[in-house]
């Protein structure tokens, strides 16, 4: 790949230069093992300072509240600091000062341990995300399955939180989150398997490399996989419209009902952290990661990546501000009856295409043919499967019937008295 990025340490388009220079310097003066210890620290600090912390505070907390406030015809935080930008800091300080109550009948050890279990995987998740061409913290060969494995852990923490609170709402939330994650894990893993089959690699930098080489993002090659991934991941993350595990109007706050103070704050912050991680993962897999058809030569790739992540996160915010919430049986039915068959269909289609790709000698241009096949095929598959399940787009009246005079009953089935 032709690249304009140089190896000078001051070339901020590739921050790995800087860390490499630092490490080489350390290596000259310090024993061999020290560089091993310093390298992860540099990566960790860099990832946190550049991406995780600002995203979490200023996109996750402040931006989400501002954007939702705009959607809801109100202002959102605007008092603390310029434009209210310091609101997350103020919130964190407030949470730190609050008393973290523990109910008498709660399992105190587990209730204390749950937020800790919840936080740890969130940090691990960012380790395998490639921020730039050479900016991946841990290039695990099986990075994709690492991501799946680690993102399954917070469910356990949420279950522990709900169970240990010894509250019926909490227990309901815990049961719901476990049932949901079991259901939605299946289509999620299946569509990621489609990606693996198609790109022939399980390493996340490899997947980005594939998208750069074929000059086409996977969202265009596998639109169905992207849609299924978005729905499944928003269900796993408990984002509206699928936030039934902490459905405010039904079970108060779900598994978080009894949490307060910083223990609650950890859950809240890490919820955003997981959503950001899922957004980063999706932008890596489906949106081309740090690549942008050559623009990455001029703009720092990590900035492109962060922009894509935040764009994806914005969609989360948007759905949250717009859509009502589904019921649990509807959600489970949706996962098993709708998403799972579609994911299997997509896997089948993609495997066939990959086989064809291997056999044919069309070269790299084949991805455009595949795109031309897959986009209509996905739409047709969704439509046909919906029809097969008996879903018909019926015209449901959005306006009631109008009558002039009071008195008497108007029959339920009365086509003449339509109020349209």
């Amino acid at each position, binding site marked *: 790949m032709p690249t304009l990025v140089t190896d000078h340490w001051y070339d901020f388009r590739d921050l790995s230069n800087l860390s490499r220079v630092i490490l080489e310097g350390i290596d000259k003066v310090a024993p061999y093992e020290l560089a091993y210890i310093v390298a992860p620290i540099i990566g960790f600090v860099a990832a946190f300072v550049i991406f995780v912390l600002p995203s979490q505070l200023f996109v996750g907390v402040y931006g989400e509240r501002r954007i939702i406030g705009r959607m809801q015809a109100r202002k959102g935080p605007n008092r603390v600091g310029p434009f209210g930008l310091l609101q997350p800091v103020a919130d964190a300080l407030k949470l730190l000062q609050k008393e973290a109550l523990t109910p008498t009948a709660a399992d105190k050890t587990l209730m204390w341990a749950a937020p800790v279990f919840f936080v740890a995987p969130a940090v691990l998740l960012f380790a395998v995300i490639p921020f730039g061409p050479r900016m991946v913290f841990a290039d695990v060969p099986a990075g994709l399955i690492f991501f799946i494995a680690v993102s399954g852990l917070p469910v356990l923490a949420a279950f522990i939180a709900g169970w240990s609170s010894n509250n019926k709402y909490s227990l309901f939330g815990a049961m719901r989150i476990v049932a949901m994650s079991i259901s939605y894990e299946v289509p999620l893993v299946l569509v990621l398997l489609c990606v693996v089959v198609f790109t022939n690699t399980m390493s996340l930098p490899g997947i980005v490399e594939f998208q750069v080489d074929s000059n086409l993002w996977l969202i265009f090659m596998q639109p169905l996989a992207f849609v299924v991934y978005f729905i499944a991941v928003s269900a796993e993350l408990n984002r509206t419209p699928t936030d039934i595990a902490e459905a405010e109007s039904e079970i108060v706050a779900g598994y978080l009902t009894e949490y307060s103070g910083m223990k609650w704050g950890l859950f809240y912050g890490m919820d955003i952290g997981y959503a950001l991680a899922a957004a980063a993962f999706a932008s890596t897999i489906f949106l081309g990661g740090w690549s942008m058809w050559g623009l990455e030569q001029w703009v720092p790739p990590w900035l492109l990546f962060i922009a894509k992540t935040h764009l994806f996160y914005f969609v989360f915010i948007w759905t949250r501000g717009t859509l009502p919430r589904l019921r649990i049986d509807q959600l489970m039915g949706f996962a098993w009856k709708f998403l799972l068959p579609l994911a299997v269909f997509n896997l089948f289609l993609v495997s066939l295409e990959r086989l064809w790709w291997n056999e044919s000698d069309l070269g790299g241009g084949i991805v455009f043919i595949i795109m031309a096949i897959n986009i209509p095929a996905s739409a047709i598959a969704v439509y046909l499967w919906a029809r097969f399940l008996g879903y018909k787009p019926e015209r449901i009246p959005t306006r009631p019937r109008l009558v002039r005079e*009071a*008195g*008497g*009953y108007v029959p339920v089935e009365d086509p003449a008295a339509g109020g349209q």
Partner: protein
Amino acid sequence: MTRWWTGEELAEAAERLVPGSVARSTATACILEAEHAHEALRALRDDPETNFAHLSNLCGVDQWDRFEVVYHLQSLERNQVACAKVEAFDREEPSVASVVDIWHGAWIQESETYDLFGIRFEGHPNLQRILLWDGYPGHPLRKDFLAMPGGLQPGLNEFAGTAAKPEPPVRPVT
């Protein structure tokens, strides 16, 4: 416009449907005999001419010598309203037949009347206090509530100067 039935009109209709069910009638209401009240109310609901399918209101009135249970019956199709009353004379254990089996919506109003007046509704599926808690002394909407056994006094119990209990206000009833 809704036709508001006078007591006489309702008495006529009730007498036609269930003979002997009317005790007397006033300008606004028809007082039904307690033992025929349930039958008469059901007939008033089912008869196509009266058609009082909707029980608009049910409440109690304490008239010192008797309790009245007031039913405001309403017909949606014929657009008419009538007022029927049933009286209970026993001051200690007043009792009236329940109309829950006629109008389902009566249960909540009957419970409330039981709670606040102490009128028992025979045949009510689940007659419990709904606004006040179980064990609350007395029934507050009775006129002699403040003089009832274990009755409460206005104001705080420990309020200075309330040691002498004032006589409950008694007003002559016409």
